């Protein structure tokens, strides 16, 4: 129970970072925290029905649910890819406008376009 409440807090901190922070790099950090919280929740809860890793070395042990782990593997890789692209976009925006602040970027882009 406590750990799940903490995960909710983590998720909301990440969401706060995305919504309220002005610096676009911090926004990207926030997105990663958000993603990590969702992944951790999935893995944590999936591990409640067993004690062993899902590798069948010693017969039919009480293994955890392998599906969340396989799904989260995909979700993590996708998260990393999106982050890489977001960082590249941020670098490009910095090159165009000379700022990492979202409001300044908006203004300068509007001036140019």
């Amino acid at each position, binding site marked *: *129970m406590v750990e799940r409440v903490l995960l909710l807090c983590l998720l909301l901190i990440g969401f706060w970072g995305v919504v*309220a922070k002005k610096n676009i790099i911090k926004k990207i950090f926030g997105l990663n925290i958000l993603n990590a919280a969702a992944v951790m929740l999935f893995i944590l809860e999936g591990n409640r029905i067993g004690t062993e890793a899902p*590798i069948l*070395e010693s017969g039919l042990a009480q293994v955890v*649910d*392998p599906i969340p782990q396989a799904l989260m593997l995909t979700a993590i*890789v996708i998260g990393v*890819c999106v982050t890489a692209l977001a960082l*590249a976009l941020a670098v*490009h925006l910095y090159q165009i406008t000379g700022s990492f602040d979202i409001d300044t970027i908006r203004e300068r882009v509007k001036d140019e376009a």
Partner: protein
Amino acid sequence: MGKRKAWGTILQASLAIGAMGAVLLPIFLCQTPWPTVARDYLVEHGQHESGAINLVSAIYLGYRAFDTLGETIVLLVAVIGTMGLLSRVESMVNAVGDDDNTIQTVSAFSLRGEKRSSHVLRTHLLEVVTGKIGPIVLLFGFYVMLYGHLSPGGGFQGGVIIASGIVFLALGNQQDNTSALSKSSILGGIESVSFLLFIIVAISGIFFGKGFFGNPLADSAYPVGFIVLLNSIIGLKVGASIGFMCIAMMGGHD
């Protein structure tokens, strides 16, 4: 005015966080016991059907390999997009003619009279250590990649280790004579070809009557061969893409 605006921002953000937090409460507080149907099925039949002891590998390269294809596509597109954007950034820097960006430095670590055009952080210490570790890391990466069906690991994990090996080799290049593995043309080639191979393997099941993404070796003595093959292809592809991207972000791409 500025202060008022800042308060408005915080108020709006709090509203958003509050709404989302309230919505998410049932998701995080749910006490329902976790379902065991799929786990029980996999423990009983998973090893027999896919040949892999590692059930996670069995799922993401067997039962749900189509997701994995999507995942590699996302990686591929992200790499292409990142490279496109970064190369544009570089061309802009060059167009401005801003020579200060490349630091022609004489750092404390360089030998007397040595000409270095590389970055200030590239020291002899770093070059020697990473140059020696690089091959070992590569070897470990191939181990993780090839034994993914038996132990924790697999194509993605192994691929990322291979990528760090490539980055080490690129960092350890003394005097900037880049080794073949850190050349973007070669890494790009490995990436494109392994993507093509992945698709061919995915289609191959059709010709063995197993359907799209079916295991063509399902009836043979070694059904696990399919997973090993996919692990190797994915490992090469991920290693090449991420290594490529890291080298580009370090500013070493041509």
